[in-house]
Each structure stands twice: as structure tokens, then as C-alpha cells.
């Protein structure tokens, strides 16, 4: 039975063996749902508030999409690095970016097992 209290971004750090790439970002935000997709125009149509979005895309438009959809955080799988310009933009917009050594498949598996629901 999943806990009804939503996870927070800080809980994802240990769950996903992840580190925050955006020092100063608010790790207390609730994670309301999980999602993975690399097609930005698709994500624009399906993004939701509080979403933890797993993507291998790292350019600046990723941050714009996450911010405009009020997402909780962006998660980069397999230690993928994000360009400095994108991280600067994330910091300026208050968007948290996590980097995990796990694959996108494993990240989503762990999120789901921990009770993070699918989008509505």
C-alpha cells in the first residue's frame, strides 16, 4: 500500500542514487507523478504539476517545458550531463535537475514501486 503522503524531491536522491545538479534548488517540493519521454512537443501536451520527468534531452528547452508545466524536477538517467547554460537557466527559474547513474527504465521502476503515480 503506497504511502499517501507524496514523496519530496529530497527523497528521490537516495531512491535513485541521484545528485542534484542545481545547488540551491528547493528539494522540499512534492513529487506528484512520474513520466518519461524525450519528445518535447509530446511532453508539452502531457506535462503536469509536480511531475518528475525522466529525459535524456539536456538543452535549454527542457527547462522551459518543465517550468511552464510546473513540474517538480527533471531527472537525467545514466549520468548524462546537462549543458551549463541549461543548468544556469534551471537555477534562475528554480527548477531542480537530478542526475542518476540508473537507466530511465530502472528510474521509472523505482519511482513506481515507491508509490509515485502515473500522470492523470
Amino acid at each position, binding site marked *: 500500500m503506497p504511502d499517501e503522503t507524496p514523496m519530496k524531491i529530497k527523497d528521490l536522491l537516495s531512491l535513485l542514487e541521484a545528485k542534484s545538479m542545481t545547488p540551491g534548488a528547493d528539494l522540499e517540493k512534492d513529487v506528484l507523478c512520474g513520466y518519461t519521454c524525450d519528445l518535447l512537443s509530446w511532453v*508539452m501536451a502531457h506535462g503536469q*504539476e509536480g511531475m518528475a520527468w525522466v529525459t535524456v534531452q539536456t538543452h535549454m*528547452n527542457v527547462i522551459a517545458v518543465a517550468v511552464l508545466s510546473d513540474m517538480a524536477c527533471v531527472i537525467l538517467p545514466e549520468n548524462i550531463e546537462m549543458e551549463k547554460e541549461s543548468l544556469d537557466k534551471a537555477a534562475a527559474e528554480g527548477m531542480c535537475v537530478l542526475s542518476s547513474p540508473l537507466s530511465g527504465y530502472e528510474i521509472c521502476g523505482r519511482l513506481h514501486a515507491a508509490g509515485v503515480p502515473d500522470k492523470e
Partner: protein
Amino acid sequence: MSSTLLHEDYPVEAEDYTRAGEASADIKRKLKQLGVSAGVLRRVSVASYEVELNLVIHSRGGVLSLEVTPERVLLVSADRGPGIPDLELAMREGWSTANETARSLGFGAGMGLPNMKRNADEFDIESQLGTGTTIRMGFLLS
């Protein structure tokens, strides 16, 4: 005539992927300051980003305008061409003429126009080949 609370024009350049989204981010900030509800704010944000990206990907450049009255938020995108040859096809989900650059960044899924129409309460598109395309989207505030 309703009184205009806010009017802003944002020039958007063709192929400028670095600045893409800045107009939409500013629109979101301004509407938030005006106290627009979260639901409307999210729909306007999605639609404005889609239309801003369309200007970057498909047009020769244009202007995205924001107008707010007590009744509605109005977004108008007017570009300098090239115009859409077949509007019915362009409105079809999955249809896209985006180039390789746009696709490599994760755009060009053919979701833009249908997604704008889905998020706006009022949607109108006019296009003339060689002249340009104008898209009007209204979002009711009450």
C-alpha cells in the same frame, strides 16, 4: 469594449532555439502577478510555448502579443510567412513539417496546433501563402 489591463508584444526570431520560451516565461510571470488562477495559467503557458516554438521552427519570425482584459487572456501570434498551404492537414495531430534541427531537439511531433486548440477556450487560425499566419487564442477568466 472591455478595458485592457495589460498589453505586451514579444518579437520572436526564426530558428532562435536558445531564446525560445522566454516570451512564454514572461507571459506566465505577468499573469501570475495579476492573480490569474493556476488552471488558466497552465493552459495559457502551454499554448503560448507551443505558439512561440511554432514561430521559431516554422516562421520567418513574428510577434507574439499578450492582452489581458477583466474577461479574458488573449494571445495573438502574427508571423511574416511563409504561410501554411493546407490548414486542415496542419491541424491534424501527428502531421509535422519541422526540419531536422527541430526534430533533433525533440520538437516536430505534430502536436503543436492541436495542443493549442485543446488548451484555449477560443481558437482561430488564418493563413495566407507568402504573407503569413495569424493565430488568436482566448482564455476565459470567469
